[in-house]
């Protein structure tokens, strides 16, 4: 039987590391399994690169990460409970907010109750639980300040639109503190952590461009809430640089690093689109 050399094993190891496999000895399991699959195919007459691509296609996009999450789901009761809660709170929260919007448009009674319940499920359950699961799935959890600022800043910016829709007091204060926390605490700390963990200079520059663009967007939204001049320019600059600079740079780097599109990239594009739309509408209004 053919045996892979160190260089070939390292290529496979890079793929396992890229997918952040860190749970127990799962990385060793998967590395050995992939090596065995490739060795078998080479023995049957395939070239290494073809066999490697065949196995990668068999695994699929982020397939190893999925195996790790499934393993965590089966072996960790707390994680399992959180994952189930995440699904229920996410679906129920979105359904209640959609129903609330429909009731509000048609001036039916009960719209406010639906809104409050929906935002409560999303803000008080879905969002904190999703931060917990992200932390649990990560091999190197970030500092508690990063999770804390994301949690509080995120909660305030989730509840602020609810207060706004229901014409309750405090919406602007929630937006103000939420955006300030995200822009002044979370964003710089997250950027610092990304720069520390990234060796590639192109990626590092891309992250800096992304963080500055986001900062402009958040600052623009804050200016808008405080009725300060220049809000529209700030949001427009941030949104444009996010779409015209950060996204192309990031897309170029992601596509040159791997022929397959990671799921996180798709979420990032959708997230940027929604973020830009929301901020532009807020600043034009």
């Amino acid at each position, binding site marked *: 039987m053919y045996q892979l050399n160190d260089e070939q094993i390292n290529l496979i190891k890079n793929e396992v590391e890229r997918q952040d496999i860190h*749970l127990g000895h799962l990385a060793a399991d*998967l590395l050995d399994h992939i090596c065995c699959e490739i060795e078998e195919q080479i023995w049957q007459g395939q070239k290494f690169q073809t066999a490697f691509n065949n196995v990668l296609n068999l695994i699929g996009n982020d397939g190893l990460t999925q195996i790790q999450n499934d*393993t965590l789901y089966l072996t960790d009761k707390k994680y399992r409970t959180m994952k189930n809660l995440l699904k229920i709170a996410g679906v129920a929260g979105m359904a209640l907010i959609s129903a609330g919007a429909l009731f509000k448009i048609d001036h039916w009674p009960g719209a406010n109750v639906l809104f409050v319940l929906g935002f409560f499920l999303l803000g008080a359950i879905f969002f904190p639980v999703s931060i917990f699961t992200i932390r649990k799935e990560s091999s190197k959890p970030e500092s508690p300040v990063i999770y804390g600022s994301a949690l509080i800043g995120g909660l305030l910016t989730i509840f602020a639109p609810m207060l706004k829709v229901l014409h309750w007091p405090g919406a602007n204060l929630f937006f103000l503190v939420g955006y300030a926390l995200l822009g002044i605490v979370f964003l710089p700390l997250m950027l610092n952590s990304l720069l520390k963990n990234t060796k590639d200079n192109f990626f590092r520059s891309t992250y800096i461009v992304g963080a500055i663009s986001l900062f402009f967007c958040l600052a623009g939204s804050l200016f808008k809430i405080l009725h300060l001049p220049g809000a529209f320019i700030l949001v427009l600059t941030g949104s444009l640089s996010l779409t015209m600079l950060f996204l192309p740079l990031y897309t170029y780097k992601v596509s040159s690093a791997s022929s397959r599109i990671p799921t996180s990239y798709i979420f990032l594009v959708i997230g940027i689109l929604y973020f830009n739309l929301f901020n532009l509408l807020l600043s034009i209004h």
Partner: protein
Amino acid sequence: MISNNFIKGLIKPIILKLLAENGKMYGYEITRKVEDLTEGKIKLTFGALYPILHKLEADGIVGTETEMVSNRARVYYLLTEQGKFSAREKIAELEDFVSTLSKLINPEPGLLPCTS
């Protein structure tokens, strides 16, 4: 090829039976053995195999031994003392399930409906 829906609940007893018969085995070896014994009709994927192996390990049913083979670590799985008892139970359960299913699909002549 047998549908994954049929196999899903049977992976655990299949793994336990193989470990009971072969002593220690590594992940890829288990998938190959299943494929060989079933003439390729049952294929265990990575995604199906490792979460269950790790669950069995977390429950104390299997233990692991790591060896360096061809410049990489290879993790072997083997039944623990508790696992041997659990394996006997699961295998008996599996055999009972297969014979019950067989009775259901191929009823004895006396149970066949009258066609004439």
